[in-house]
């Protein structure tokens, strides 16, 4: 499937955290949709892979969950960012920024 890539290792967690940071409490489906949209449809994401990642984040205390009702009146489990999660999101974002900046310096061809 040309032009679409698998999701890079270890970035799914950060995407989830960022999504929750921007949009506030959201259910799994909503998070999945948002990640796909934000990536400009350039990611292939099996929505199912999201759930183990959510569980791991919850176990680590970065997000918390509770059952609620969606905008179209369906029962759904909503995830929200905890305070530790907010910090983690910032930290990881910083690290990614640094890493990508560094990589960018390697990859951009030197100007003549």
């Amino acid at each position, binding site marked *: 499937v040309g032009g679409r890539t698998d999701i890079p290792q270890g970035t799914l967690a950060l995407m989830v955290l960022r999504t929750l940071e921007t949009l506030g409490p959201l*259910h799994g489906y909503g998070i999945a949709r948002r990640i796909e949209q934000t990536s400009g449809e350039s990611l292939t994401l099996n929505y199912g892979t999201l759930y*183990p990642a959510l569980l791991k984040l919850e176990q680590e205390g970065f997000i918390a969950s509770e059952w609620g009702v969606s905008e179209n009146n369906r029962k759904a489990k909503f995830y929200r960012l905890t305070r530790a999660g907010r910090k983690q999101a910032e930290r990881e974002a910083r690290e990614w920024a640094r890493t990508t900046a560094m990589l960018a310096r390697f990859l951009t061809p030197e100007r003549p």
Partner: protein
Amino acid sequence: MRTLRALLLRLGGLVWRARRERELAAELESHLQLHIDDNLRAGMSPDEARRAAILKFGPIERTKEEWRDRGTLPVVEALLQDVRYAARGLARRPGFTLLTVCTLAIGVGASAAMFGLLDALLLRPPPHVHDPDRIVRIDEISNYPRYADMKDRLHGLELAGLTQTRVSLGTGPGAVPLQAQCVTPNYFTVLGTRPVIGRAFEAADDVPGGEPVVVIAHTVWQRHFDANPGVAGSRVRIGGRDHTVVGVAPPRFRSLGLQTVDAWLLLTLSAEACATPPLHLRASGGWLITIGRITDGWTREQATAEIVAADTSPDTITTRRPDGTLETRPVTGPPRLRPIRDREFGSGAGQSVDRLSLWLGGGAMVLLLIACANVAGLLSMRAVDRRREIAIRLQLGAGRRRVFTFLLLENLLIALLCASAALLVAAWIGALLRAFFPVADLGELLHPRTVAVLGAFAGLAGILSGVVPAMQATRGDAAAHLRTGTVLHGRRRAAHALLVAQVALALVLIAGTTAFTESVRNFRLHLAYDLDHVVAASADLRRAGYRDAAEIAARYDLMLERVRQLPEVESAALTTANLLGERRGSVTGVVRQGHQPEDGGCCHALVAVSPDYFSTLGIRIVKGRAFTPADTATAQPTAIILDEDLARAVFPDADPIGQCVSIFFRPDCVMVTGISESARRGALRRLQLDSQFFVPFGPPGSSDVVPEMLVVRTRTPSRTAAATIASAIRHAAPDLPYVQVRPIADMADDEAQSWRLGASILGLFGGLAVALAAIGLYAALAFSVRQRTPEIGLRLALGADPSRIARMVLRDGLVILALGTMAGTAAALALSRYVEALLFEVVSGDVSIFLAAGLIIFAAGLAGCVLPALRASRVDPALALRAE
């Protein structure tokens, strides 16, 4: 931190699994619904909407699987699964489980109880003694003048002295005997022991003519003072004098020894009760036990050097050399500091208790070994049974390690069950030991340390008996097991070897028991007394403050009169000697008149008796006559009875009857009127230093020789009569101190206690061992019969005689028994040399012992063989063949 939190949550995920599963399912369902709603809104048909959502979600089962793995810990989960499976397996075979658990529990429980005993006896420091490692014993200082001389000159050592005694608390019917220690005032300071109520002794207590004081034991305080917290200052009568209670010792404090101590008195102030020899006398040596505490900052070597240097005036003894010159040399070597853990403290049994308990501990370990062998046998049989099951697991892809772990897990589960059952067994055997062991309060036998050891034993036993079978089960070609049910001969041989070992070990235990039982029996046979019908009563009137000989004699006469009136009593007599107890009568020489033996006729025990003495005790007069009332008329005895040994020694070549001897180094003729059999026969004589001679008591008050004991011959068994006699005496004379009334059989038992103890504990272990071996034999044969059922069926179908089949099975059992008995006899013979010192008149290698032990084992073993043999002969050939 985060990782730990996650780990805990994942562990937590192991519970509530069903609920979490449901929640996940609901969450995924809601996810799909939301997606479907969106798709519908985008204009898809319902079917299409659903399919697209499911497609987008990806493989749902893999998500669930990943989620589950993340939700819990897969390793632990597998383990838990195995545990659950193992538990179910054990529950499905309740007979096997019960047998295994009980077998192990018996072995482990017995070992743990014995460990508890050894721990209490040998390893644990004496309670309430501060820093016991710095306390030493100095055997070379054994009289008061030397103690006093050294005490103030040492800096590296603070000395204290003590003696042991028995005193009476109170008088009349309420009087009780106390085991007391008479000590120097600094005793408690040196031990570092603080009373829980009141105070310890102080130097100020110890003034000449001061008021006697006492520190009582915690048990005495509870039992006789109603645990009254205001007890300090109250007055009690001890040993004929009023004492002021100054303090109560902490619970379970028993000085440095193993025996109970009920009260502590001051050597100097309670001289009468303590029977303290005159303090200024140097000679009379050996009555004081000297201990000391090494001063902080001093090493044992420094303290030793100091005391050796300070020892300038050792006790000396002067002897005449063969050439006539005099030689003076010290009685003892230079002082040495010995650790108190040597445990030679206290009276009597001390040392042999240590050795005996080590042997009994060994017996318990043997029992544990048997139990392990038994269980290993059971498990390996079971492993054969489960070959198919295990083979299937291996073929289905379970790793060998997983199967091995599973089998071990099963054993650990058994070990866990076993440990809880073993606790019960240990508590029970512990209570038994407590009742039997001739030492004081052993404290808590199920000490945490003991429980830990028990757990270790159980785990070890479970693993040991499980590893080999588990290895066997997982080794080899799994597919081969699946194809046929071949009997593995190597494995059977191993199982048989285990059984032979069990039989052999059981035989060793039984042989040990028999040897100890023989010792007890021999001991009783070596006493001339009629043990079953004699009761002895004694009151230590001198220690209770009676000084006048006539008064003491009158008191005993009163006791004699009271007792004679009782209907249970056949006859009664007075005597000076403790029959079997620690003290001997006074010792003097008996010389044939006109002879001058080299040793002056030394040394024979003088026993003054009243006329009925011999008939009351059941001692035969082998020649001549017993005393008559006429013999008691004079203050100086005119008649004498020698025991056989003495008669032979004094009159090697003549008939003693009617001959004159002199005693007390007086020239008067005392006529030999009779010869009695020796109180102790054969080998027991070496336990008694002197042969005895008897003279009649004179009229009351005519001499210093006073009665010390009343012996009573009863019509009813002595044990039941003793209580009646005791109350008759105690109520007759309210001013008497404690009167001890005991059947002399009990007194004999006291002396035979180490043998009785050995016999009962080893007997218990031996009985259990035999039972285990028999059960093991039964299980093995029954199993082999089951394995061979097709073969047996075939034989029967071909016309074999059922009785021959039975014999075939029986033969297997008999071979095991025979081999085991031989091996056991060899082992017991090898060991017997070492135990001999603990026995009485039992020769190592006594054939009758092994014969008896062998018979017992054989009988029990045979009982285990018969049932399987019978079952084998009753196999229904048709059924057996069809099953194949």
